[in-house]
């Protein structure tokens, strides 16, 4: 008996399920049909005048009708843009909700609105846009800032001369970078790193304490910073001469050289270096006490 009741209950559940499915399917079909119907009925009908215009068979009446439609459209646009205030007789009304002006008497803002409406209605009188006009620079730079590229943009680097003015595109920045590479001895030797902007030479990893002459043999050299565009490319100290200077020879004779930091703006040419620390004047000789001074007492 119990089993019979259970079977009846199960059968009832099943019929309920099937009813639900049938109703759902019917609803789906109804909605689908309605959508299809709406697509068919909302097709844009082409007016006779437009059709004839397309076929170059427009009559003067057609042209008049189209022109009137145009002016009507422009007028409608202006009235709509003015919030209906341009309708004769209608016009704006005093604020019934609270005393005082609606837009708190700001004459400056009131002056903006006619300009905005003017541009807006001018746009309405032109064919509709089908794509974006070029976006302003302010917005484009915003796009760059938001692209997750780390935030550094050489075009906005105040350390680079003419940044944001002369350098207009990343391509131009690349070109300057290429010029820099090409001006280095040995072409595009990527081991050459310009030092910091203060002109301090930072020993390169894996090259510290190396013989300058040896580094020259590898096609390398140290350079003061490169300033793109202003021709202020300056060479640093003449390391060959520096290395041969007896004053820089360690007294213990080990022969290791350590490159000193170059002073900011030092820009010392090899000529100036010769004058200050080069060989002694004729008739003098370098002291043997390791100080590097000249001894002219023998003359």
């Amino acid at each position: 008996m119990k089993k019979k009741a259970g079977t009846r209950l199960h059968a009832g559940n099943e019929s309920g399920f099937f009813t639900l499915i049938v109703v759902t399917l019917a609803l789906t079909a109804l909605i689908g049909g309605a959508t299809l119907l709406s697509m068919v009925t909302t097709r844009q009908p082409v007016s006779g005048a437009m059709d004839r215009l397309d076929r170059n068979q427009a009559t003067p009446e057609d042209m008049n009708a189209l022109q009137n439609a145009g002016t009507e459209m422009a007028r409608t646009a202006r009235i709509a843009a003015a919030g209906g205030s341009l309708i004769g007789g209608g016009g704006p009304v005093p604020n019934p909700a609270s005393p005082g002006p609606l837009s708190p008497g700001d004459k400056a803002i009131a002056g903006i609105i006619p300009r905005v409406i003017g541009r807006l209605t001018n746009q309405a009188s032109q064919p509709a846009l089908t794509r974006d006009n070029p976006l302003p620079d302010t917005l484009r730079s915003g796009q760059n800032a938001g692209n997750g590229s780390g935030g550094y943009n050489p075009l906005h680097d105040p350390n680079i001369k003419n940044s944001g003015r002369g350098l207009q595109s990343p391509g131009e920045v690349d070109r300057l970078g290429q010029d820099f590479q090409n001006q280095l001895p040995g072409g595009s030797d990527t081991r050459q790193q310009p030092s910091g902007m203060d002109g301090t030479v930072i020993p390169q990893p894996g090259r510290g304490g190396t013989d300058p002459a040896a580094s020259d043999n590898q096609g390398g050299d140290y350079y003061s910073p490169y300033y793109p565009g202003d021709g202020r490319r300056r060479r640093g100290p003449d390391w060959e001469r520096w290395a041969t200077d007896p004053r820089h020879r360690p007294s213990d004779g080990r022969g290791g050289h350590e490159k000193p930091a170059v002073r900011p703006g030092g820009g010392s040419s090899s000529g100036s270096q010769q004058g200050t620390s080069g060989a002694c004047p004729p008739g003098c000789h370098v002291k043997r006490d390791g100080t590097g001074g000249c001894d002219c007492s023998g003359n």
Partner: protein
Amino acid sequence: MITRFAGIQVLLAATLFLLLQGLSYGGAAGNSWKLSSSQRQYIKTYGSPQQFILLYDLPEGNVSAAPRRIESWIYLSAARFVLFDNGFFSEEQPTGVKVPKLSEAPHTRLKPERFHSSMTQKDIIRTFGKPDTTETAAFGSHTYTILRYLSKARKPGVLNISLYDGKLAGVVAGFAIQPADMDTLRKDLQGRMP
């Protein structure tokens, strides 16, 4: 038994999915305005416009054609306004006026995307409440209806909505043109009025 029950469940889920698809497709037909990429870019950069004018260009004699949507977004604090045509960026112009304190300037909290071409007067009243004034004017064989929300304290703030033959024609949000402004506006548009 379990397999049969699972089969029914799958069938039901599939039917429900189809039903929802049908509903969403039917609802997408002009019932919302999706911001374009350039509009999103402006919102990302400057935020929502502080005032805006939106108008629907309804093609005369072609009632079923999709209306063209032209918008002007005004950024008082950034001293510029932008024009969009069907969502496409058209131009950006300086307002020439810098408003130092936005809190003192009229502005709206409404967003342009809230308005769409299929909005009716009923929809508007349901959304924003009863307007402070309703004006109706005959315009040739057509009818203009203007719903004005004039109280800054109310939910929509200052808002003017124009309907042309019952269809949404224009929205002016954040300000209303006052009698004192009319002379300037008329003078500016005098040469252009057809």
